[in-house]
């Protein structure tokens, strides 16, 4: 199995790393040979995919950037199986037989964190920071705003969302500045769907909280939590893609997960068991494709009722009772028609 990364490359703490984790899991289980090839620029994709196709039985293309290259290369190597992570079908909609695509319902995990943020805000304002307005980022935004709306509908509140774009997935300094600006405008929880810019957002949350709590950077989690309750407020970031809660325990409220690891694992597993079908699969909460993080460090901060509500929302989504909007139109028409059974 060879994985071809996009220009983000390994170490992005996002879908490249996630995909790789899934592959490693499959490796441990089935004892297959694995390798990763990194791409430096757009024009490397065709080249790298072709070379990989000659070497490997299964080639995994990671990232939406690679879609054109993938659909050019795959038909040329019918004997090789291709797995596309976060890659949408071509415009015609016809996916080559030897290609299995995985997409994600980012809006669903964003919905959870949106609901959570709305429930947790003390200021009535939450933030969203996007990188570049590409479709996955936009789906995160739709879901996030829908989550806030749902909370507003259910509780008759009026939590607002401040939106900003860094126009970059790499400039952490800009992410931090933007987070500080949003905090200054009254937001106290910010969800960053902006790649590595998000690290800056997390840093901003930590910095603001440290000041508010009057503790220093090395304070342990217990102190942080105590202080939160003592002050009755705090600043939080919300992570994206992978579980980023550990990056600043106590300051990252939760992460909206996109389980690319599961996707790559499913793909490799199917190929190994000769059950590879080809086609498109959109992984949502139901398929364990997206979810809310474990909230290992922050669960104690959230009222049990809210956690229960989110659990129920998860159920509602999985069972189709609730459909989270994935475009501007649906978002505008969205209203949460939910009654909690408790």
């Amino acid at each position, binding site marked *: 199995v060879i994985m071809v990364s996009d220009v983000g490359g390994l*170490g992005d703490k996002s879908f490249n790393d996630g995909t790789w984790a899934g592959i490693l899991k499959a490796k441990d289980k089935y004892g297959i040979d694995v390798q990763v090839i990194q791409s430096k620029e757009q024009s490397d994709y065709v080249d790298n995919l072709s070379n990989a196709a000659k070497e490997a039985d299964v080639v995994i293309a990671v990232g939406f950037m690679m879609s054109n290259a993938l659909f050019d290369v795959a038909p040329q190597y019918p004997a090789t199986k291709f797995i596309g992570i976060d890659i949408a079908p071509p415009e015609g909609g016809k996916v080559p037989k030897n290609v299995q695509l995985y997409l994600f319902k980012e809006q669903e995990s964003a919905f959870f964190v949106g609901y959570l943020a709305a429930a947790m805000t003390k200021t009535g304002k939450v933030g969203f920071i996007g990188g570049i307005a590409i479709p996955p980022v936009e789906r995160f935004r739709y879901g996030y705003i829908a989550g806030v709306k749902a909370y507003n509908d259910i509780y008759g509140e009026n939590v607002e969302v401040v939106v900003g774009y860094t126009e970059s997935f790499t400039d952490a300094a*800009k992410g931090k500045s933007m987070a500080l600006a949003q905090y200054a405008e009254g937001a106290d929880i910010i969800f960053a769907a902006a790649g590595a810019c998000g690290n800056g957002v997390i840093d901003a949350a930590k910095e603001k909280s440290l000041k508010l709590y009057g503790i220093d*950077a090395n304070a342990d989690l217990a102190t942080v939590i105590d202080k939160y309750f003592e002050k009755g407020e705090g600043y939080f970031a919300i992570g994206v893609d992978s579980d980023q809660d550990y990056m600043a325990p106590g300051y990252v409220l939760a992460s909206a997960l996109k389980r690319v690891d599961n996707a790559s694992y499913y793909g490799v597993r199917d190929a190994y068991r000769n059950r590879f079908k080809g086609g498109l699969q959109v992984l949502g909460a139901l398929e364990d494709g997206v979810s809310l993080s474990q909230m290992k460090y922050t669960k104690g901060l959230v009222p049990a009722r809210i956690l229960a509500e989110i659990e129920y929302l998860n159920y509602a989504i999985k069972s189709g009772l609730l459909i989270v909007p994935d475009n501007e139109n649906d978002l505008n028409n969205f209203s949460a028609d939910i009654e909690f059974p408790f």
Partner: protein
Amino acid sequence: MNIFQAVFYSFSTPIFYKLMLMSATPLIFAALGGVFSEVTGVTNIALEGIMKIGAFTAVVFTFYTGNPWLGLLGAIIAGVMLAWLHAYVSIRWSADQIVSATALILIASGLSAFLMEPIFGHSGQTDFVAKIPKVKLAFMKDVPFFGQIFDEMSIFVYLAFIAVALSWFLIYKTPLGLRMRAVGENPKSADTLGVNVFKIRYFGVLMSGVLAAFAGAYLSIGELGQFQENMPSGKGFIALAAMILGNWNPVGAMWAALLFGASDALNIQLQSILDIPPEMKALLNLLPFVITIIVVSGFVGKTRPPAADGVPYEKE
């Protein structure tokens, strides 16, 4: 709020000034670095590369020692080493300074990316390390407005302005500075007076390594606490522009960096204030660049580099 109200509102908030300073700080350091190098007649478009290696080494040293001040020291060492390469081939071997700098940018990014795996066990971004603590000014706390800007600020911000003052002093008020300017303007003339042109140029280029390393260290251990592969994100080039816009003068470079920082802060704040569609918010990011172009062409006009900038000096 309409756009004008929003702009005025921005100017009236402390956070605007804070963001401006944060955004300007790395630019000031790097632009000063550029000034030092170019005032002695060696162009240095490798600022981006030096910043990168500085940011990276700062994290590595902090990672191993746990002490971010040693991290800063490491950054300076690495920055000076990279700058030395530039100096050595530019001064000793009359190399094309733009090519040499371009090469160093590549080497810096190759090296920092490559070393991440052996040191941290993964690539892309490093682990989080300790940051250089912020300066808290207790007496500022209750001062209205200013208190909120200066209550807690990275020491780099203050250092940047101190560096501006020191650089200005060094370049315009000391014998060394006089010689630097002479060497950048007319090396032959300096040479005929027994001034060691090569030494002075080495000094200028190495200083640019020190200062650009500060810029890099600010980004990594000053604010974020980690290094990411794309770290300076083009700030080295913007610093280059700031240096030119500031007419190769430390104080001018500072104003140029502040101008850029202010427009960047304005962009970020407007996005947080204005209720406009997402596409429009994305386009607000153009603001700093458009403002810079307008300022350079509308108000600043022609700037004048040191006459021997980029010209290797050869004896005989």
